[in-house]
């Protein structure tokens, strides 16, 4: 989090503000004796000023803003903290005062805007449940390999929410080059931690100790028909395995159930796809017919299960051996396929 910096900037300002304005009728200025407001309403009686001053780390945002200035603020006032936090966030965005890494990942935007938008979709709309999160390492690299489905890569966003909620870590996704050809979407992907699916980027992220997420099925996975649901497609050339072997990273297979039903793909308008340069142009029971309304995903029930990690260090010497790579890729695929079947038994009704 890009906290801490607002203090350094604003703290002197709040000090400078101390004597000046306010005094407009309110009897309380910087004095510690708290809130002469309707007694019990102020709840946990904590002096507004000194408490904030003493514990800047605990309550970061309000400390950043001149408390004694105009309006007095009660400690523990959630809304005040939210407003102050949102304004400070806005100021940092407007002045460019935030950090991005070399892949374009913007942790502050991800945590404050992107994830809060995706989280209710996963938790409320899709009623997402996560199991096996203990298989994700608390620190250090791991390659998270998932099945891909759902016509649009909604499952990618949901997986980042699941990983972040369970571990507090950011999943760095690898996306197809098509993603980076599309304006806006490409930047959203980079800012939320994604990068191009190529060995150079994957290995660089893994060497930096990141959690990297990949969908080896690619377009074959999300673009498959509804009647092929939950049948994993071919795993490309296994580039993800060689990245894991080169860096000695464990592979964590993950099975996602629920994405198949959000946009049941029943057809593909090939000429339109060719015109737009996309791998397919989806036809779902709702999509071209209902216009934009057809883009609302169906509210299926989602289950996400992380499987025990597969140690790749024994194969480190054969990182370029196609047989080893093929066998490992197959092992990962089989693990995901079996876990998907297991999860489907737990969820007989897709819209339960």
């Amino acid at each position, binding site marked *: 989090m890009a906290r801490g910096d607002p203090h350094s900037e604003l703290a002197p300002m709040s000090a400078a503000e101390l004597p000046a304005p306010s005094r407009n009728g309110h009897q309380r200025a910087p004095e510690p004796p708290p809130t002469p407001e309707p007694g019990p309403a102020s709840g946990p009686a904590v002096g507004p000023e000194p408490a904030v001053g003493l514990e800047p780390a605990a309550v970061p945002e309000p400390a950043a803003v*001149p408390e004694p200035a105009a309006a007095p603020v009660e400690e523990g006032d959630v809304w005040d903290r939210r407003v102050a936090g949102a304004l400070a966030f806005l100021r940092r965005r407007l*002045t460019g005062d935030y950090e991005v890494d070399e892949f374009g990942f913007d942790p502050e935007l991800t945590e404050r805007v992107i994830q809060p938008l995706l989280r209710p979709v996963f938790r409320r709309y899709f009623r997402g449940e996560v199991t096996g999160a203990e298989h994700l390492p608390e620190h250090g690299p791991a390659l998270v390999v998932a099945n891909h489905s759902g016509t649009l890569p909604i499952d990618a966003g949901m997986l980042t929410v699941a990983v972040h909620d369970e571990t507090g870590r950011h999943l760095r996704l690898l996306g197809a080059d098509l993603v980076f050809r599309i304006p806006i979407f490409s930047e959203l992907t980079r800012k939320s931690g994604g990068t191009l699916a190529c060995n150079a980027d994957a290995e*660089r992220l893994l060497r930096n100790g990141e959690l990297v997420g990949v969908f080896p099925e690619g377009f074959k996975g999300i673009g498959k028909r509804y009647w092929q649901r939950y049948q994993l497609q071919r795993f490309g050339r296994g580039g993800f395995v060689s990245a894991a072997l080169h860096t000695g990273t464990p592979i964590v297979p993950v099975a996602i159930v629920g994405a198949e039903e959000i946009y049941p793909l029943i057809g593909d308008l090939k000429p339109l796809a060719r015109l737009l340069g996309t791998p397919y142009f989806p036809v779902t029971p709702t999509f071209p017919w209902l216009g934009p309304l057809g883009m609302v995903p169906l509210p299926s029930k989602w289950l996400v299960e992380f499987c025990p990690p597969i140690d790749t260090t024994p194969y480190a010497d054969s990182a370029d051996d196609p047989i080893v790579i093929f066998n490992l890729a197959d092992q990962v695929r089989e693990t995901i396929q079996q876990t998907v079947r297991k999860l489907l038994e737990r969820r007989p009704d897709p819209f339960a």
Partner: protein
Amino acid sequence: MVTDIPRTVVVTGVRRFLGAHVAARLAADPRIGRVVGVDTAAPGDDLGGGVEFVRVDPGLSQLRSVLADTGAEAVVHLALATAPDPQGGGRAAMKEQNVIGTMRLLAACQQAPAVHRVVVRSSTAAYGASFRDPAVFTEDTQAREVPRGGFARDILDIEGYVRGFRRRRPDVCATVLRFVPFVGSRVDTALTRYFALPVVPTVLGRDPRLQFVHIDDAWEVLHRSVLEEHSGTFNVAGPGVITLAQAVRRAGRIPVPVVEPGLSGAAAFAKALGMRGLSLDQVDLFVHGRVVDITRLTTEYGFTPRSTPEAFVDFVRAHELGSLLGLGRVTAAERAILNGIRRARLAGKRSLDGARRPS
């Protein structure tokens, strides 16, 4: 094989800012005996004491005799045009200078037995910029697509000539430095002029990752390349990344997104800026961004340039870009809004309490 400090150094391109400074800096170093600045036209400013200026014909046919007469042991090739100059012959002249100039220079070096060190200025434009490229380029990354800008293609040709030169003169230490764009207090390039515009056009829906190197650090790396032996190709960039939106905001400017409908739009984009020298290289850069790895530089030279954000801040400060959207103003607005909301909420609560109490 001679590995000691060269006694005589020839610097090309001293008419330009970079060349003039590198020559002056080398001349100021007591370990170097003689510095000869070479260019096709006399430099506008005085080169300063210590640098001898030799004017050569545009065909560079005298270059061989210059190298022979001075007994040059090191050659620093900085005579590169990064953008076509409409008054100076446009793209054709630019290509002539970059490609043919380098070819002639390397041919002259090849025939000068005293030369044992050659430093060539290159650019990370050699990597191109496309949506299929990895996020971070190392020196060994091959560009997925041939860059469509003229400068980038010149760079590829230049590096090709250096490879050929290395084969023919394996005894010479050839250093190729791939620089990212320079920023600094006195740098005046298309890019720095771009950030000085009051409203800065950007490409809609794109926020490319950029890197800069501070001109002081670029000089330092060039200086060390002459004094020390560092054979090979090196990326020279400030570590870290700044996105275009960040850069525009940190410069206190307002970004204005412009749609980018293909190539013709790109040209219009350059024209709309009303500035010469914004080429297709830069348009691609502004769409896809480019970040390079500098591990090889830091391990080989034992030197790390100041970071990209630091270099950029220094540029903003030095150019005193009259900030339109400065930190001070935004902070004041933030405070005013917050206090307004607090007052309103307090007033609301008061009236509520007032209404409740009598009952």
